[in-house]
């Protein structure tokens, strides 16, 4: 007993030292503890490449980040569109019951770790300022932490913290620039150019381009008119996070199959801020900003006369979505005449399964529409 007590006291001392180190300088102590991944304060030379993983909120902010970092004198390397190998390598290292979007992020970081000099991982804490606290999903808030403690040999990671509830957007960009050691004047120019680029991207999305096509359009590639809006006897609105709508590997080319069925496809990424805000006023307040947008988008589409059906995309294990789908269902149950298809995606979803469900859904909408016409005629 005595000896074990002594041992315990020694342990206690050892651990206390560790804790005090933590207390003194949180982040550096944590990095020191991680041994081989200890990083000196980041030194990024001009012309070095900054890797941006094509996952999570990439489809919302990439044009901004690209222009900003290029304006500051860095080369920006975006990881390629998700493929099976990236998804698989992400699934290998990630906790098993987390949503597929986070697994994809891990895969992209693994892809970038030996190709880019620095990997940029955004930390989105809050993206709007309201009179109540707003957040994004906890996984977006803690993404850099999860990456830091999973990868033992990440070259260096660069954090881009967005907390609009506390500090404005430009402040986050200023901090990113400062951590890279970019002179203020250069940063200001890059910032303005980046804001213009972001506005261009958002305008393309409003016009009806889906995120991947809009990204192509920015570089002058792809069709000049959104192909998903061209034709269709039925209109289907797809509501979901941009990382689900924008990633054809996660959604198993759902938008393509809708198009192939001859449907006109709208998506929640096309709605303008005003349309979302107008809808939000009628809905209960939610502190998850992105999910509030989705709920508003679903509600908006179910009220529109030109939309025949809504597909709600969600990934398995998505925390906020499990609550939001219930609210969407509730919205639809009360006085709305609409069709809703809930599509749960995970890393095992099969393309043929998605295709079958989409075809059946479109056929049902068509049938419903023709019956309605007949009824209207008689």
């Amino acid at each position, binding site marked *: *007993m005595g000896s*074990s007590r002594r041992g*315990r006291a020694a*342990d*206690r001392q050892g*651990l*206390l030292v560790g*804790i005090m180190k*933590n*207390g003194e300088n*949180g*982040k550096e*102590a*944590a990095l020191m*503890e*991680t041994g081989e991944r200890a990083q000196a304060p980041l030194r990024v030379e001009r012309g070095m490449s900054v890797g941006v993983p094509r996952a999570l909120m990439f489809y919302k902010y990439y044009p901004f980040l690209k222009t900003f970092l290029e304006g500051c004198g860095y080369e920006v390397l975006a990881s390629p569109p998700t493929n099976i190998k990236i998804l698989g390598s992400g699934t290998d290292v*990630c*906790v098993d*019951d*987390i949503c597929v979007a986070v697994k994809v992020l891990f895969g992209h970081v693994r892809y970038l770790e030996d190709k880019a000099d620095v990997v940029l991982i955004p*930390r989105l*804490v809050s993206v709007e300022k309201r009179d*109540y*606290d707003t*957040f*994004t*999903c*906890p*996984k977006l*808030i*803690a993404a850099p*932490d*999860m990456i830091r*403690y*999973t990868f033992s040999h990440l070259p260096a990671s660069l954090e881009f913290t967005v907390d609009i509830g506390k500090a404005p957007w430009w402040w986050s960009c200023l901090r990113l620039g400062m951590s890279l050691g970019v002179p203020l004047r250069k940063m200001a120019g890059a910032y303005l150019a980046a804001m213009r680029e972001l506005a261009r991207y958002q305008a393309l999305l409003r016009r009806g381009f889906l995120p991947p096509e809009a990204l192509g359009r920015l570089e002058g590639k792809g069709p000049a008119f959104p192909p998903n809006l061209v034709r269709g006897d039925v209109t289907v609105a797809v509501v979901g996070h941009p990382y689900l709508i924008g990633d054809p590997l996660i959604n198993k080319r759902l938008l393509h199959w809708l198009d192939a069925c001859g449907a006109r496809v709208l998506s929640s990424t096309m709605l303008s801020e005003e349309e979302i805000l107008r809808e939000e006023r009628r809905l*209960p*307040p*939610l*502190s*998850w900003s992105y999910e509030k947008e989705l709920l508003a988008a679903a509600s908006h589409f179910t009220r529109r006369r030109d939309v025949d059906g809504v597909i709600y995309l969600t990934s*398995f*294990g*998505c*925390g*906020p979505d*499990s*609550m939001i*789908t*219930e*609210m969407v269902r*509730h919205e639809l*149950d009360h006085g709305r005449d609409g069709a809703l298809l809930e599509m*749960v995606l995970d890393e095992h979803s099969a393309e043929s399964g998605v295709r079958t469900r989409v075809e059946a859904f479109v056929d049902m909408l068509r049938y419903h529409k023709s019956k309605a016409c007949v009824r209207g005629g008689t």
Partner: protein
Amino acid sequence: MKIAFPHMGNACIPLRGLVEYLGAEAVVPERPHRGTLDRGVRHAPEFVCLPFKITLGDCMNALDNGAEVLAMVCGMWACRFGYYGQVQHMILKDLGYHFDSLRIGREDPRVIWEKFSRYLGKSVLLKAPGALAMLRAKAVAVEEMESIARKVRPREARKGDADALLERYLEELDAASTLRRVRELREESREALRSVPLRGEEDIVRVRIVGELYVLLEPSLNFDLVRRLGTHLGVEAQPVLSTYRWLLSPLWLDPFLHLHSSRFRRLTRSYLPYILGGEEHMTIGGTLDAKRDGYDGVIHAYPLTCMPENICRTILPHICNGGDIPLLDLCYDEHTSPVGTATRLEAFVDMPRSRKGNGDAILSRHTSLSGQPCCL
């Protein structure tokens, strides 16, 4: 006014004390069991976390027993728990139940006051301090009985003695209606539990349980984790959270709780600089402190798809490797089997026991296999 609130461990005892002191009637349905969970699962969203499902089933049981008002704590956090009340009450109303929902923390205090004064009259305000004193006294008594029982269970000479005593005293505490009786019971139970005959003092393995609040505290959900470890496996298991903490810290009835949790927040900041809305600081802080507090292992229990705990799960192996302390992750959902959990617990408990019992010889054998300290 028949008021009901979901079960969470023994939280119903102090809450019933509070409600009955105010002059309302508390509807406490049967303890949750498999049937309650199945009932909740049928109506809950598919991949919502497990506490949502079991409390939904519990609310349905309460409504069947004649509850008129459903109370639930709500808030606007990044964790889903803040929306339980809103979504559950929506589902229940869609199912055709009629009740008044009392969402504490979300609704305007004036609205809550109006509801209370409508049912109970304005004199309820005068009773409030006494009711809070009752809540506190009962919460303290429950906490004390449970913590002594947790210590006695693995050491008792005849298995089940402590549990029998605990059950009896909790029942009496639930029936007690005056502060004096609560105080008496507290002293009686302390004496009785401390005089349980013990086996000879052995070096008992101590395990800290961290994780999601509800899974930690609700025995029907975690297959009676603490008691199973104590009585069957002879391990002293101490959860880092308690109903006492959960009930009293938002009411500021015990400032030490705040000191404790702000210390854990400070420790956690180097791992997770932003608040995630759950109990992540208790999980990470508890694990960091486990060795210092004399524990031989850490069990991390959480429901499937729990957001804050999943994030902690990526960080905990790292802490446990560095701190050289074994870790077991237990993930619960409606398909988890009690037998599987028991097997994993048995296997896990052998590890700290062998490290502790046979000293350095076994320890070096364990570590030399992988070159790393063992970690399940």
